[in-house]
């Protein structure tokens, strides 16, 4: 007769829980610090890659447009996450650096007449240089004063974008050549031999690569020694300096790198929109980047993807649902879908900060803890 199993008797065989839900234990720091340090994460990454590559075939041009804008915004949001989430320096001026990137792209393609592909590195270098010039001013002050200085930066940048007409086109705005590969316009699409790219498909694929590379660079920076220095500065800069962290370099590096990637995002946004205006790079845009960071998960680089997707998709969703929502007005004045989503984002930002400082990532952590410890509550 077989021995009884089950409660209260221990099982005779060591039944393993399925790999997916099992906690991964680490025996070395190296394994814990790995980029994707658990089976689940590796699986999720593969799933994401497959979904991302399948998206251009499954979605129409309008939704692909949302994805492209979300990917572009995610580059800026990830870089802001490095500065604000990882290094703890609240910046309300991110839109200014994104704007610089966009205007560099306009100058390179329209005034100089070069190919678009020069504008991305040029935008990174010039926006990074602007960050380098402003960093000593910004880093002389701490905390709330930094927030106020960067707030001033947004208004100053708007003023310069509007009035430096020879470079920015002033009130008339600026035009940007959209990028081409082998003669195919990446936004409008085109055919080359057997290869046919639909509208937005080419740009989507390019943005996927750029956002992926940005993610890897920033995440690797954040999980290494530099990132640990930044986290130490965020948690207490005085304590960090006492244990030997070079506080000024850590802040400076975060500021310059985040400005450079904001510039990259701006150049790509310009290349996609093909027309930019001086009043686009305002405080609202800066706050939207903050919403992406806070909503995704402050300090979690990749979570900014989720935030960016949400912030980009909501206006589009509201726009499509407008016939069902009588309180939304169609165009012009009143409560347009853009304004409704701005109100939502503002309230959401406050709600996230008050109730769940880690945003969607925090919700996911709670869900995961609930599922892995089920049926227990601890």
């Amino acid at each position: 007769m077989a021995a009884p199993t089950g409660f209260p008797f221990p099982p005779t065989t060591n039944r393993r829980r399925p790999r997916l839900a099992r906690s991964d234990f680490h025996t070395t720091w190296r394994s814990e610090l790995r980029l994707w340090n658990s089976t689940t994460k590796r699986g999720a990454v593969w799933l994401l890659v497959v979904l991302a590559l399948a998206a251009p075939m499954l979605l129409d041009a309008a939704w692909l447009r949302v994805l492209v804008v979300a990917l572009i915004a995610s580059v800026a949001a990830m870089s802001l996450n490095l500065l604000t989430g990882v290094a703890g320096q609240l910046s309300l001026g991110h839109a200014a650096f994104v704007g610089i990137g966009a205007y560099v792209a306009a100058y390179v393609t329209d005034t100089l007449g070069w190919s678009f592909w020069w504008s991305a590195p040029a935008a990174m270098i010039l926006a990074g240089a602007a960050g380098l010039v402003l960093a000593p001013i910004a880093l002389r002050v701490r905390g709330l004063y930094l927030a106020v200085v960067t707030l001033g930066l947004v208004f100053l940048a708007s003023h310069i974008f509007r009035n430096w007409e020879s470079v920015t086109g002033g009130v008339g705005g600026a035009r940007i050549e959209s990028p081409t590969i082998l003669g195919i316009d990446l936004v409008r699409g085109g055919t080359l031999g057997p290869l046919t790219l639909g509208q937005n498909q080419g740009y989507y694929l390019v943005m996927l690569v750029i956002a992926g590379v940005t993610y890897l660079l920033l995440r690797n920076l954040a999980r290494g020694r530099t990132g640990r220095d930044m986290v130490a500065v965020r948690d207490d800069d005085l304590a960090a300096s006492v244990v030997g962290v070079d506080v000024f370099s850590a802040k400076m590096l975060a500021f310059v790198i985040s400005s450079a990637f904001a510039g990259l995002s701006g150049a790509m946004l310009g290349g996609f929109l093909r027309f930019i205006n001086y009043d686009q790079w305002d405080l609202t845009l800066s706050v939207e980047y903050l919403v992406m960071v806070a909503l995704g998960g402050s300090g979690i680089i990749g979570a900014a993807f989720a935030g960016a997707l949400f912030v980009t998709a909501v206006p589009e969703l509201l726009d499509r649902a407008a016939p069902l929502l009588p309180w939304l007005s169609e165009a012009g004045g009143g409560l347009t879908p853009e304004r409704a989503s701005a109100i939502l984002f503002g309230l959401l930002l406050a709600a996230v900060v008050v109730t769940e400082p880690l945003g969607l990532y925090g919700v996911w952590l709670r869900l995961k803890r609930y599922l892995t410890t089920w049926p227990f509550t601890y």
Partner: protein
Amino acid sequence: MSGHVSLIISSLAVGSIYTLIALGFVVVFRASSALNFAHVGVMLLGGYVTFQVSRLWELGLLLGVLVAAAVSAAVAVVIYLTVARPLTGRPVMAVAIATIGVDMAMRTAVGSYPPWTGESVEVGGPWGADTSLVLGVPVYTSHLWIIATGMVVVGALVLTVERSRWGLWFRAIAEDEESAAAIGVPVRPVLLAAWMLAGLLAALAGAFVGTFPRLLQPASAEFAFRAIPAVVIGGLNSITGAVVGGVLVGFVEVYTAALAPGELGVNVHHVAPYVLMLAVLLWRAEGLFGTPDVRRL
């Protein structure tokens, strides 16, 4: 000379408005150690409620300001109870981020209400475009009233903070909230009162922002944003600083508008306060009258 008299009166009037807004920031900062960006949205709301009561319902400016003050104070208290109080003890940055979200929502919501924002509006001051003679120079009567009101409010505020029991409690809480609570200061009522006071000041400022020769429009919110440099120039925790900073920013703005060469661009006087702020911060990182940050591990 006559040019300067009217410029000085304008500067003082604009400076009074900045001072009123700046005082709201400082009062909240001293009470809750928080930079309350939602103050901007509260000011805009106050201005438009004044417009609603005074112009659309034709009940007069005084009643308009009173109603706006009540509404703004209520909104400020709601922001305190839902955002600032739950964040007590969290990093100061958290309140700043949360309130800038509230501010964006409020500004956009006010800007989405067609009866208010169809065009630029005047809140309906009884002075209209009247002028009075000062040293033989005609200046807007409304400016004189704004200056007078500003001086009365600043005087009353300083007297309250320095001489009254509530002012003593307020200063004790600003010094150290826990010690204040330990010696029996009613912390919660005082904090509530401080946020209400900030709302009142915002409503008054909002009404003046919409008084001729200025017009109220959703972009008037930038008026309140420019009061932030005024606060920072003076020092975030100093009432004297708010007054000096506010008046200084008023002078800088009016004189830049009058004297700046065209090459500096359209509306350069709107960014001049920020430039002044950067200059002051490079010189003194805590502002002119602020207390330097004393930090220990």
